[in-house]
């Protein structure tokens, strides 16, 4: 232990406080900034991209990065930068739609199984227990295999396999809230259970749900692109990031640059969601931080 003067303590404490405050908000600001860029790319992909995503030019096939094609071209002479930009919409919408669905059903199941006591809660609990035993990716692959390759199969695969974890987290939070005095008070004055659930329990669980949704979206991007890589996502010529990486793998010997951009795009989008989730956690619920 170092001895410091009171003045020194307060100024260093202040510095630590400001530094910590800044570093926490760096996550939130950084994540939001990254995701905003992707939202813009998703909305205006065709306008931003220097070339058409599917415009072929066999005279310029497999060219390395140059001033004309910043990230090079693929074997059909398509501009890789344009394909990655236009592909943003697909991955972002799969992630957002799947996580919205998994959150809706996960929150519903979690609210019921955490709040109600009885056979219904036990049944939901058992079902979630069982579902959690199937590794996420394996479940997603099986669902995508059964549904067939495509956007619908992909969204179903991710939303179904992501529902059990969020329902488990919501259930835990609801069981905590259920024991709070204000819930007992509401019960005592005769507020109906479903009203307690929606007006008192849900708003108090919202923080956990929002944080979890953001972190899940990052995982959804990883799962969606992995399925694309395995050939279980949308089919070519749609420029999906995972599919682009699968395609690039075949040309690793002649055109290693083909795998740089799609992978970087996936990583940055996941990073954006992860930073947003961690930033939200620090901002909304300081107790949960590490």
């Amino acid at each position, binding site marked *: 232990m170092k001895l410091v003067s009171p003045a020194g303590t307060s100024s260093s404490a202040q510095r630590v406080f400001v530094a910590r405050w800044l570093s926490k908000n760096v996550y939130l600001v950084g994540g939001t900034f990254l995701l905003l860029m992707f939202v813009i790319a998703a909305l205006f992909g065709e306008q931003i991209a220097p070339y058409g995503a599917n415009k072929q030019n066999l005279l310029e096939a497999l060219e390395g990065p140059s001033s004309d094609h910043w990230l090079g071209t693929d074997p059909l002479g398509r501009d890789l930068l344009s394909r990655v930009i236009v592909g943003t919409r697909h991955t972002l919408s799969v992630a957002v739609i799947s996580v919205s669905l998994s959150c809706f059903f996960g929150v519903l199941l979690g609210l019921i199984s955490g709040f109600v006591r009885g056979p219904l809660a036990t049944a939901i609990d*058992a079902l979630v*227990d*069982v*579902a959690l*035993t*199937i*590794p*996420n*990716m*394996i479940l*997603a*692959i*099986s*669902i995508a*295999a*059964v549904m*067939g390759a495509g956007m619908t199969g992909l969204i179903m695969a991710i939303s179904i396999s992501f529902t059990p974890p969020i329902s488990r987290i919501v259930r835990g939070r609801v069981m905590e809230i259920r024991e709070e005095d204000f819930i007992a008070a509401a019960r005592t004055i005769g507020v109906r259970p479903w009203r307690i659930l929606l007006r008192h329990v849900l708003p108090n669980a919202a923080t956990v749900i929002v944080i979890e949704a953001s972190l899940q979206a*990052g995982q959804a991007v*990883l799962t969606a*692109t*992995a399925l694309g*890589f*395995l*050939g*279980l996502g949308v089919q070519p010529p749609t420029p999906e990031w*995972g599919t682009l*990486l699968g395609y*690039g*793998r075949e040309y*690793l*010997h002649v055109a*290693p640059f083909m*795998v740089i951009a*799609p*992978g970087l795009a*996936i*990583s*940055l989008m*996941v*990073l954006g969601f*992860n*930073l947003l989730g961690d930033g939200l956690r620090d901002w909304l619920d300081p107790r949960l931080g*590490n």
Partner: protein
Amino acid sequence: MPALAGPKPILRYLGLRLLRAVAIAFAVVTIIFFLFSLVPGDQAAYLAGPGSTQAEIDKLREALGLNDPLLVQYFRHIFGLLQGDFGTSEVFKSGPLPFILERIPATLALTASAIGLTIVIGIPAGLVSAMYHTRIPDLAISVSVVALLAVPNFWLGLLLLSLFSVQLGWLPSFGFSGPAALVLPSLALAARLIALVARMTRGVTIDELAKDYVRTARSKGLGRTAILLRHVLRNVMIPTLTVIGLQTGYLLGGSVVIERLFAWPGIGDLMINAIGQRDYAVAQAVTIIFVIAFLVINLIVEFLYVLINPRMRAV
């Protein structure tokens, strides 16, 4: 409950966990059966191949038992599984079990060496990070952790492949030809776990270093490294085990993608091949094997908990 806990309560606890695992395995097999029964299209017509007559298709459908009610098919499936019958693979023209068993060692080698790498890299990284708390090594490791958690394992694998096999030619790029071939795929698979374990170890170590017993050890004249290795490391093992236990699902699911990337002859690669050939009996069998592996690993983790943590023995 008697205050003095002998071996009996532990055995009862472990026995109950085992029973629970069996019940869950049964339920999962049921879910997987009904999931795969949703496969669209006429399976018999597909398997009979193009140019086959309606009579041939009908005969095949009858032979496969696809005309029976779903529930009958379900019970046949369950009784088959109990006898080790995983259905008939249309590609291999036999039960898929021998083909799966033949590929299990490759998957085991991949996942086991990923766990090994996680322990060998993740724990020291976390300890170093905690020792240099808020200084440059800590910063570098913490940034790497955030980055590794965002990078898809198959992209990391592609980059490693591109650098170490294609450009430098140091390591083989595909197949299971020996220990050298294990390096890249297991590193790609382990990256996420390494990051999680490093982060967890860092957090736990920072907490532990602030505790009284560390101060006592310091006052006895023990060096920082000795305290870390002799006292703190022990307390770090439990959270590490927890991370590995919680991430078993990732490990198994990730192995499918990594096996595909490195043409690794494991069961994940088999599963994706089977899906590509619409050989659903094999895909379903591999899914069941994965779930059983998941349950077994989780049981092992729970048993290890009891072994490592004396407090658990009193349950």
